[in-house]
């Protein structure tokens, strides 16, 4: 027994202003306080989260294989991928900054995609993962996503600062577009996921276990 939920008591929560309103006969209802559309659970949450997560996972390949920028220095220069940019920072001795960039542009997108897939699977297959653990994953995934844009902001700053023709120049490369799309798509995916589904699936497991031995 995990307490009474709004769904069981026929009340819905407006996700925009957290107002509690009586269940309508048909979703979506209109929130009387802020006017947002209210569904008992985010509509087609799993489907959208899956679609966006898979899109992000596919785009992560070009984002890491293609170069994201080229630094031309005294007439010479080669395209850099995300990883080689981190390696250069490391070789130059800036290991602190190298770790920050590595975490923001390699670890965070991977963690987000794995986390989102895990959350979807937990709901879909009713995996016996404690909701407290799953909520931790959900909150981490939600909090870290925006920091992946770090590399792209850096590119936009360098492109403006270093444009001295043959002497020194920084150019953006196609990989950056793919990487930008990965970040946007995963941010939208984590918005689409409804954490209340985790608790629904957990209480469904508990209910099944309770009636099992009888």
């Amino acid at each position: 027994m995990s307490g009474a939920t709004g769904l069981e008591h026929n009340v819905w929560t407006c996700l925009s202003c957290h107002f509690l309103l009586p269940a309508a006969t048909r979703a979506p209802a209109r929130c009387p306080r802020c006017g947002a559309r209210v569904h008992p659970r985010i509509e087609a949450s799993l489907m959208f989260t899956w679609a966006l997560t898979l899109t992000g996972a596919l785009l992560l390949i070009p984002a890491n294989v293609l170069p994201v920028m080229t630094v031309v220095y005294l007439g010479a220069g080669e395209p850099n991928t995300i990883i080689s940019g981190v390696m250069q920072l490391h070789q130059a001795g800036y290991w602190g900054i190298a770790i920050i960039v590595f975490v923001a542009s390699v670890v965070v997108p991977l963690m987000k995609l794995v986390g989102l897939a895990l959350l979807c699977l937990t709901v879909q297959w009713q995996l016996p993962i404690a909701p407290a653990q799953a909520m931790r994953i959900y909150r981490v995934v939600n909090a870290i996503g925006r920091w992946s844009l770090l590399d792209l902001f850096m590119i936009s700053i360098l492109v403006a600062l270093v444009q001295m023709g043959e002497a020194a120049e920084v150019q953006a490369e196609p990989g950056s577009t793919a990487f930008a799309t990965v970040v946007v798509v995963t941010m939208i995916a984590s918005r689409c996921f409804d954490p209340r589904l985790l608790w629904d699936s957990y209480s469904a497991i508990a209910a099944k276990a309770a009636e099992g031995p009888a």
Partner: protein
Amino acid sequence: MERAVDSPSGATAARPWRRACYQCDLLLTRALAPEGTKLLCPRCGAALHTHFPHSILYTAIYSFTGLLLFLPAATLPLLHFSFYVFDADNTLFNGVASLFGEGYIWLATLVLFCSVLAPLGKFLLLSFICWGCGWGKLARPVASALRWYQHLYKWGMLDVYLLGILVALVKMTDLGSISVEPGLYCFSAMMLMATATAISFDPEAVWSRLASAEGQRVAGTSGEPDL
């Protein structure tokens, strides 16, 4: 901050359900936290309401200061790079313009949106919300402004951009001489204001202010807003 935790004991006619947790749908008999405390969901730990004292006044001050800082932060150069006889400045806009010129339209739009449009929109919306919630007449526009603020909330990335500046600063030290310009101080202050509004803003305070303004309007007395 102290924690005010509600126990999920059943609702009666005297104590009806007041709120359901937006992250786990647990029903609670308490909707708001007392001043200076946080209301946490007893089941999943989500912060349901943070009662910041004088939330509207502080948010109004922070967002207005943020708006004032936006002008120098967006127009003054942030970084200066010199390389033998060449030199160049970086402002919030010319990075976007260079990307746009190179044909990276989607990337330029995203950078512009996250570093300029969304933070500016958040400041404008918050200023409007804090000013407008004292007038019952403005209840509907304020309500939609609040919704837009929720949508924009995660896309304002001044803090990430500032870290990007730091990384660019380190990366360029070997290539030429790079220096910090006055715009960067304004930008950092603007980022602090954005963080301050995120901490101080409490939508529930706006809703109760709107409800009382609406009540005054219906009663026929003129509602002067007191921030």
